[in-house]
């Protein structure tokens, strides 16, 4: 499987580590006056996962490359990848200049 790293280009699966479901949001610990999200919210975030057949949004870590965390949209049946984006403050950084480009 090739993952299209927005920073490095298409790279082999072996360079990445799977980071799990990227559709869940970490509960905001300060969201309610009682000291944060409910136990159910945390349980859902930490333990419960869907196992969708088909389109899925996943975290992948390019640990053997640029070390950026990516959100990858992948079909769990065909392994086809719709796209990948950088997660976090580096998402909007200038892409690395292509070799040979001016």
């Amino acid at each position, binding site marked *: *499987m*090739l993952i299209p790293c927005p920073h490095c280009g298409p790279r082999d*699966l072996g360079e990445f*580590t799977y*980071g799990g479901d*990227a559709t869940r949001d*970490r*509960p905001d*610990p*300060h969201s309610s006056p009682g000291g*944060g*999200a409910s*136990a159910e919210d*945390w349980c859902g*975030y*930490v*333990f419960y996962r869907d196992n969708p057949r088909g389109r899925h949004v996943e*975290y992948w*870590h390019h*640990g053997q490359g640029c*070390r*950026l*965390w990516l959100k990858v949209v992948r079909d769990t049946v*065909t*392994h086809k990848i719709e796209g990948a984006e*950088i*997660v*976090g*403050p*580096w998402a909007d950084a200038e892409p690395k200049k292509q070799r040979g480009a001016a």
Partner: protein
Amino acid sequence: MSGYRLESARIGDTVNFTFDGKRYQGVAGDTLASALLANGVDLFGRSFKYHRPRGLFSAGVEEPSALVTLGCGARAEPNTRATVVELFEGLEATSQNRWPSLALDVMAVNGLAGPILSAGFYYKTFMGPTRKAWKFYEHFIRKAAGLGKASFLPDPDRYEEMNAFCDVLVVGAGPAGMMAAMTAANSGARVILADEQSTLGGNLRDSAVATNPLAKLSATDEVTLLPRTTVYGYYDDNTLGAVERVADHLPAPVKGQPRERHWTIRARQVVIATGAIERPIVFGDNDKPGVMLADAGRLYVERHGVAPGRQVALFTNNDGAYRSVAALSAAGVAITAIVEARQEIGDQARRIAAASGAELLTGHVVTRALGGQSLSGIAVATFDPKQGASESAHRHVAADCLLVSGGWTPTLHLASQAGGPARWDDTLTAFLPGEALQPWRAAGACNGTFATATALDQGAAAGAAAAAACGFASNAPDLPQADDEPVAEAPLPVWDARPKHGKGKAFVDLQHDVTAADVSLAHREGFRSVEHLKRYTTLGMATDQGKTSNVIGLALMARERQLSIPEVGTTRFRPPYTPVSLGALAGQARGANFRPTRRTALHDWHEAKGAEMQAAGLWMRPRIYPQGGETVEQAYVREARQVRQSVGMVDVSTLGKIDVQGPDAAEFLNRVYSNGFLKLPEGKARYGLMLREDGFLWDDGTTWRLSEARFLMTTTTANAAPVLSQLEFLLAAVWPELKVAVTSVTEQWAGMAVSGPKSRDVIAAVVDDIDMSNEALPFMGVRAGHIGGVPVLVARLSFSGELAYEVYCGAHHGAAVWTRLLEAGEPFGMIPYGVEALGTLRIEKGHVAGPELDGRTTAEDLGLAAMVSTRKHFIGSAMVQREGLTDPQRLKLVGFVSTDGGKIRPGAHLVAANDTASPPRSLGHITSVTYSPALEKYIALGLLEDGPSRLGAKLVATYPLKNIDVAVEVVSPHFFDPEGSRMHA
């Protein structure tokens, strides 16, 4: 079967070889099969279950019967197909699954027990009330059924891995593949052409093609030719796996060459031209040596100059098999009869039949093979497509070889791995490639195109299209002219030719001894879906993966269920196409090269001083520095004692080190660690705990504040990489607003811990510019300075409980600083100590490490509850207060001392001394053990149910696997200097 070498055969160099110890001669270019056939050998092996005599069935990878063990000793390779083994001087082959000999096999009585050993025998016999009987019979059954045996010796050969990239990969170098490769190469595409055979060309090598395109294709910078290479698997993103047999045709690999080379090929486009495999027709005793696929008979004649028999008969349902008649006639081999299931046959086939002088019996089928251990004749009956074979109107025909053709099965394996379900073609009576789900095209026989001329044309078109898809303008070479030939285009669907009450066992899967009756039985017992059929009867599950049997099995099940074949379905093919040696998959990654080895900057020094090294993950660390025949225990006790008495030094370079920088670094650490980091002053270190989101303890280590916005975090050796990944995740996905950057600096720093009452004196003697006084460098203080001009960080940290310092310097200066420190320590008797003594010292202090941080413990379990803040949010804080994690009955850290002098085993379970139950109830377990020089007894750390409330209790640490029981007393884990006065000195 009485095969022989044709007089007309071009005689090559003589090659000597042995089969079951008997000497034979073949000629260069032979396969083991063709050479044995030329020597008149007809018995090649015994069958899997019934031990029936088996001969040669095919001339290729589909061979189900002629399986032999090749070579001996460490190079012995079981279950090789004699049909694809290239003969070499001195080759040794041995037959399999027979005892005491191939000709006389006492296990053949299994054949008489046939009705008992039918499909499902083991389940029915041993999975019900008689389940216990399995334990008794298993040994005998395993001995009686099976294939060859592995050698159990280490593989002496070397294997290589290659990665290759190309525009167009062409799999199969027959007519279609050759043309596809030539066309793509002519267009300028970078091409790889792979074929499993030793010579490229496939049927072009034998058939009359006016201009042989082989002549025009040669390896260039842009064209890689890979003969003897099987593309065995089609994976995601057009990645294909292939194995090149570099040296299997030689007695041993040539120096510098591997035995096999694994290729990972990434292709932009793939042309699948994998051809087709002939299939037989089922009849009684159709496994008798002498019964062979029709095209195999042709190949032995045309490629090897070997006649498969002296009186050859043919049984066919299609025109294609007449090619074999033509080839055998041309070579002067007598054909006695052609048994043709159809009433009408093609003109060309009829002309070939007439010219051969054979009796042509149209509308007939073979109902049974006759003879003893090998074929002497065939029973033939009239055949009506509606009624089947006649019960009465039959006759016998003498023959020592029967060539059978039931049509052709396209080789769909790769297409199926990277495509949709196969499509059934009623005219060809064959499955064809389904929808392409990756960029591939099929051409030639694997696409149902059996005529050479059409295959050439289709190959050229596929090659051009593949090149065009890569952006190359098509430049097709001239198509060679192929002769007219009879083609297997519309075989009559005859699957099982027996009359209703036909005699003899009728095999569908020769390799796994699955009969037509087994398929009927599976149907009667409800195993009707194709997946159930396969698993219940084991049809198609052996090393040949049913290459000649799957479609027939399906057809027979379809007949039972009165459905069409596509309604019954087909199983999906999985890699590999043919067996792949584990060596090829492992490549160079074996033994010491199985994974990388990490060495610290001080590694050479440790080895030079005779340290016994041990692996810690990928790292190598000194375990002990033994002196003059010391045991491990003697060595670590001496080392630990010297640290407590004077001073010692240990290499701690393997600790994970992460540089944390940025204006929000302190805030970030405060959210990552369970204890507070916001107020850590510059020049100070703090011990921190990291929890997982689920509230369990994950990692620990000290983090040093080097400046306002810069920290050096240390982690355990094992978690260095996961912690960094987690920090990166948090900064990317959870707190993108924090301005922090993290970088691994584990390998940039060499680290050494100087411990013992004299450690201050040692460092003060060599450090240029740090005031080492207790006031200037207090406990947990960090200072930058120089040792011998080398920049260092000195941190006053203690894992041993002694006055101690960690000295970090650039890895390249590690050895210099280390040696300098040891020289300075000489007056104090300073010694290097290993990780055993490191463990002893920390166990005496009750400091936790990997065995206690096992992923199932909480900070509270380990007595570290005070380090879990209740006033801030951090990773894990939301879940740490869960009921299950605060239950007082949880296993908690306590210490143990051996009260009977026995050595406590790590992993031993703690049980009450008076518990007589079997097994006794476990109250917890021992995690870390050492002999304590300070206490002069064996001590241990362990996790005990509600441990702290049981101090003083007498328990037993039991290790039933070795029958070791040690009486222990529960004590505080802080065995030595619980007030910590020594490290604050």
